[in-house]
């Protein structure tokens, strides 16, 4: 991987080619490996090494962006020239003020773990063989993915920003299919591959699969649900897209619009974004090199704010919170290290307190049904169970739901004290298991 000196020299070289008023260079390097298995067989096993340099230039409030994955001087210069050409062709964007100026970046240690970086196909293969042996004892079949990654992110701009951060990441997910075809699922993530307890995850998925025999079909309707962490994380991810970023607020699309300071959820709900909390394994700066700040989004049910990058911060006359995505994105600033404060209960308390409800392991194909109402649809998957009189009694066929996320957050009854870190499409969400009443299911599987 590129060390700090080498990465900085690439930033400096690219910056030196630019004649624009302001220039930003984002360098990313990845060593990625993934061993994938299906029905107890390793069927895909891959690895890649890549580096990309994204150049953003600004001239008279006109912006151009070019990306290249070649680090030679000729390619960098050519990319700068492309970006300058594109910038020269536009009308000025009067909302643009400036790229960020340098600010001290907090030191975060321990995010690059050698064991993860050195993880080999043999190591991943051996861990997967252990999972398969476990499942074979239960006459079950395991499918899943075990990935490890090392990444370097370095950002520099012509105003003096210089930031460099190496990190590692390991993720394991497994779907176990039992002898009668029912399935269970589990997932874990950590920067340290040794802290991903693969056997525990496989055991959990296997238990769910074996408990899933003879599922019953439930009628459509509103139910009390126990949403395990992955399901909560999935809904929270979508809530983030719908309204935690300044772009959605500025464009009038955010559910936070005209609601800051008002109650929008149960007073049990507090959600912050905090990349500096070690539990979220975040990066201390964003893709503009601005240090991350802790941002309260919802506090005890009250809407508090959104996250900003430099563009929207300037537009809305506030300060960047350090939540810029790479410059060519269309989403605007986005919170990637969400923390959902937990409750006071244990997982068993949530189950035990439920007279009749549905236990949901995770969700699938969630999509916006009506963004203005934070309404989403999707299905349950890989471990859905009926709870009766405080006990998990039997498996349930997967069901489709149609639910407003904010309404669900207003209907929260209990949450676990324990939180789990869940990966969702590049974000990290630290969330509890949650009991919610009146969660709407519109159809059950035949």
């Amino acid at each position, binding site marked *: 991987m590129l060390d700090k000196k080498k990465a900085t020299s690439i930033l400096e070289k690219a910056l030196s080619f630019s004649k624009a008023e302001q220039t930003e260079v984002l360098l990313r390097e990845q060593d*990625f490996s*993934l061993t*994938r*298995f*299906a*029905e*107890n*067989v*390793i069927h*895909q*096993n*891959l690895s*890649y*090494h*890549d580096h990309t340099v994204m150049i953003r230039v600004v001239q008279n409030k*006109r*912006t*151009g*962006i*070019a*990306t*290249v*994955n070649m680090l030679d001087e000729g390619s960098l210069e050519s990319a700068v020239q*492309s*970006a300058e050409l*594109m910038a020269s*062709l*536009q*009308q000025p*964007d009067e909302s643009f003020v400036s790229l960020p100026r340098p600010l001290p970046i907090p030191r975060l240690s321990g995010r690059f773990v050698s064991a993860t970086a050195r993880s080999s*196909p043999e190591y991943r*293969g051996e861990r*997967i063989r252990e999972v*398969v042996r476990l499942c074979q004892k239960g006459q079950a079949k395991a*499918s*899943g*993915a075990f*990935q490890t990654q090392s990444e370097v992110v370095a950002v520099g701009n012509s105003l003096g920003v210089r930031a460099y951060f190496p990190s590692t990441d390991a993720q394991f*997910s*497994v779907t176990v*299919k039992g002898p009668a075809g029912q399935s269970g699922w589990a997932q874990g993530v950590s920067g340290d591959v040794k802290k991903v307890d693969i056997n525990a995850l496989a055991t959990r998925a296997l238990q769910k699969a074996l408990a899933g025999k003879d599922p019953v079909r439930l009628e459509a309707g509103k139910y009390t649900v126990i949403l395990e962490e992955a399901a909560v994380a999935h809904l929270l991810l979508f809530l983030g897209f719908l309204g935690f970023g300044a772009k959605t607020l500025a464009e*009038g*699309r955010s559910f936070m619009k005209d609601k800051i300071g008002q109650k929008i959820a149960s007073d049990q709900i507090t959600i912050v974004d905090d990349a500096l909390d070690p539990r979220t394994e975040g990066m201390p700066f964003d893709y503009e090199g601005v240090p991350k700040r802790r941002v309260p989004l919802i506090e005890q049910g009250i809407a508090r704010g959104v996250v900003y990058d430099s563009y929207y911060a300037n537009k809305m006359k506030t300060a960047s919170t350090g939540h810029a995505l790479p410059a*060519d994105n*269309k989403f605007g600033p986005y919170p990637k290290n969400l923390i959902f404060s937990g409750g006071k209960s244990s997982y068993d308390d949530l189950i035990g307190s439920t007279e009749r409800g549905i236990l949901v392991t995770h969700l699938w*194909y969630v999509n*916006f*049904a*009506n*963004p203005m109402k934070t*309404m989403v*649809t999707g*299905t349950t*998957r890989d471990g859905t169970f009926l709870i009766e009189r405080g006990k998990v009694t039997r498996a349930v066929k*997967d069901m*489709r739901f*149609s639910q407003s996320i904010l309404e669900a957050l207003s209907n929260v009854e209990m949450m676990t004290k324990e939180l789990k870190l869940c990966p969702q499409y590049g974000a990290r969400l630290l969330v509890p298991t949650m009991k919610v009443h009146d969660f709407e299911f519109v*159809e059950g*599987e*035949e």
Partner: protein
Amino acid sequence: MLDPSDIITRALNRTERLNASYADTRVVRIVEETLSTKNGVVEGMSRSESLGFGVRVLKNGGWGYPASAELTPAEVDRVCALACKIAVASGRLKERAVRLAPTLRVIGTYSTPVEKDPFLIPWEDRLELLVMLNEETARTKGVTTATAHLGFRRENSHFGSSEGSRIEQTIVHSGAGISATAMGSSRREMGQRTYPSSQDGQYEARGYELIEHLRLAENAGRVGEEAVALLRAKEAPAGELTIILDAPQVSLQVHESIGHPLELDRVFGAEANFSGTSFATVDQLNKLRYTSEIVNVQADATFPGGLGTFGFDDEGVPAQRIDLIREGILVGYLSSRETASLIGRKSSGAMRADGWQNIPLIRMTNTNLLPGNKSTEELIAGTDEGLFLSGTTSWSIDDRRENFEFGCEVGWMIHKGKLGEMVKNPTYSGSTVAFWNSCDAIAQAKDWRIWGTPNSGKGQPGQTARVGQGASPARFRNVKVGSS
């Protein structure tokens, strides 16, 4: 830096010395240019370029695929050694020997036929077009956001296999789209319309001539008008109705409920941990009445202009056309050399990788619902009470590709064979086989075109495929409808 031919030669020699039983190498360069405007202001303008190579090896019964952006001799050697190491690790957990269905040894080239190279169109001209489209779209009072975008992609790939194939291809994709959004006064209502389709616009394997043929300017005003009109429209009804889907919506249905379930790797469980499995298991081949008998679906990688059109797939298998559904019966699958051998067939040439970094997976090519024999007007006239649906706002289908719910931008009620009032937030839902068996009419060739989906997701790590679906409007009876 080595040139592609040298990389391939070196990699194949190296992997042969390392006793791989099969190897192939791809060197891929991708250039993309995108431009988007919102309300006359540039929202995004970017160019990206990526170059790298990957070596796929079969050794000791397992597969390995490493890839790298460093095109040097030492890196090729390192990647080849790693490929064999990964393959050996894979082979320690296998069930049966990997057999590859035979394919022709090919020395060939292919290039997308292009009249106007989109990369030679000046940025100023592209920008002028999009700004004009924004102005046209926003003509109607009440439009709060008018967007337009263009996207161009060129993929140049070199392929070589240990079986002696050497192939070079250049694939060009172009696309454009516009949208209008109108916000209600309470800011809790929104009307949105898009054109030509909601899937990021319309994309085809063509040059800039596509942009000129899309009639964007002619439709921009209508798009704005309809977005505003949606704010005044009543909510779509709930119940069971006959529905007619416009062609882009049929295209999305074909993609989600026919194309994806017929990816043979999915059928065999390869995607169980993420994209899911399929209800269309191989024991149902030549037996399952998947659709009504008027429905015929083909996978066709040779169809001119489709996003899934190429000369050879990423295993070097020539592009071809096969039947997937014939007169309602499931008769084929999208397959690779390995999966095809499991059902005693030859590969359907559907192995496609997203870039050089990724391993090829079975993906759709162009999944074409063949046209019927009635006009769209006849479909409407033959509907006593129903709903005509257009545009997509939302789509969701379960992990076996059965239970789905789709939301559309707009509907128009049909009363006694005539289009009536506009309705907003319409949804329809169902179960794949029952839904397709309720199809009782498909519009004719005049109303048919190939549609592009530039963002089909699958795999771990996630890959994006550019695929096509040929479709014309179609009618379905007794479908559950509602309002989101």
